[in-house]
């Protein structure tokens, strides 16, 4: 008798069918995603600010803009360190913008940032560049 001709055990028939496997996969993905979210939702947004020559800008004011129904409003601001880096630790949103400004050095464009979930930790890949400082 061929192995394929043997009847499948009862537990296999109960567990290995699409009505169990599909929900099980969906639950697993949901649990995995939520674990990832819980470990990466500290609200940290970081980056650097450079001037038009590429040098780090110390003391530039960086603003965090948060989407609020119809428009972006300033949620927080911070100042860059000696190496031009900045960090926010209280971003509550998933749809934000950051901008930098320093008198005499100029200002950067507002950079939109879309996050996969609210308060996702994020570091800007491209630094904010100050222009038009004259």
């Amino acid at each position, binding site marked *: 008798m061929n192995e394929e001709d043997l009847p499948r055990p009862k537990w296999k028939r109960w567990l290995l069918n*699409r*009505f169990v496997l*599909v929900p099980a996969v969906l639950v697993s993905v949901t649990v995995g995603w939520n674990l990832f979210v819980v470990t990466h939702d500290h609200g940290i947004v970081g980056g650097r600010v450079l001037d038009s020559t590429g040098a780090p800008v110390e003391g530039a004011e960086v603003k965090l803009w948060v989407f609020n*129904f119809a428009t972006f409003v300033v949620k927080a601001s911070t100042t860059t360190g000696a190496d031009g880096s900045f960090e926010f630790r209280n971003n509550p*949103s*998933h*749809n934000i913008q950051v901008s930098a400004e320093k008198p005499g050095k100029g200002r950067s464009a507002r950079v939109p940032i*879309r*996050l*996969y*979930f*609210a308060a996702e930790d994020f570091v800007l890949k491209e630094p904010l560049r100050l222009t038009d400082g004259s």
Partner: protein
Amino acid sequence: MGKYPRWPIHLALIAACFVMLVPFYWVLKTSVSGENIFSYPPSVIPRDPNPFYYVDVWYAIPFARFFFNSVVVSAITITANVVLNAMAGYALTQTFRGKRVVLMLFLSCMMIPFQTTIIPAYLITGKLGLLDSYLGLALPMFSTIICIFVFKASFDAVPRSLIDAAKIDGLSEWKIIWMVMIPLAKSAMATNVILSFIWSWNNFMWPLIATRSADMQTLPLGLARFLSYQEDSTGALYAFCIMVLAPGILLFLLAQKEFVQGLTSGAAKG
């Protein structure tokens, strides 16, 4: 081997599939690209696809809560529909005085739109103390006449001799329904499950009236609330549509085999 070539039928079926599936594809494409539906020339492949419209929907309204509410209400509706419609359908296969009147009453009730019965439904639900509850949201859809007739038609196809044999074996009417008739009526049951799920899932009017707290709202109400928040976002609107449609499509794909299963396969197991 058939006498005629089959490719014309396949060609017609492919054309029909195309017509049916293009709107779904368009909704899906717009939900990941946010392109304006009036843009010209239209792009078939989404430009710069991203999942952020789905994220917007998730945070614009309490989506998880609304989803949970819809699932609970649909589960109650499906259970009640299968149980009550099967019993009613079986009763209508029996011979009793006034059967024609009952059938006529059922058929005439099908012509009354739900909107005209909203006030009595609201008053009855209120008297029962079920307003703003899951049971109250599902109550008016506990039984649907169309689904009763689906069961009746399915039960009518069962040979009378089988029911007589079950009675001779000592089965009660209750056991005949659940042990003889239901296994023979899997297609009717699948139809009941899918139809009651779709009607419950998409119901807007009754939840709008029967819910008082925002926590008890279902997904169609969430869509209305979402539109009032973000009426300018095409991508997010389409993403919301996909998120509402997905469970229904998934349920249909999971149960389509049972949906199309004939009575013969059920009879072999019964």
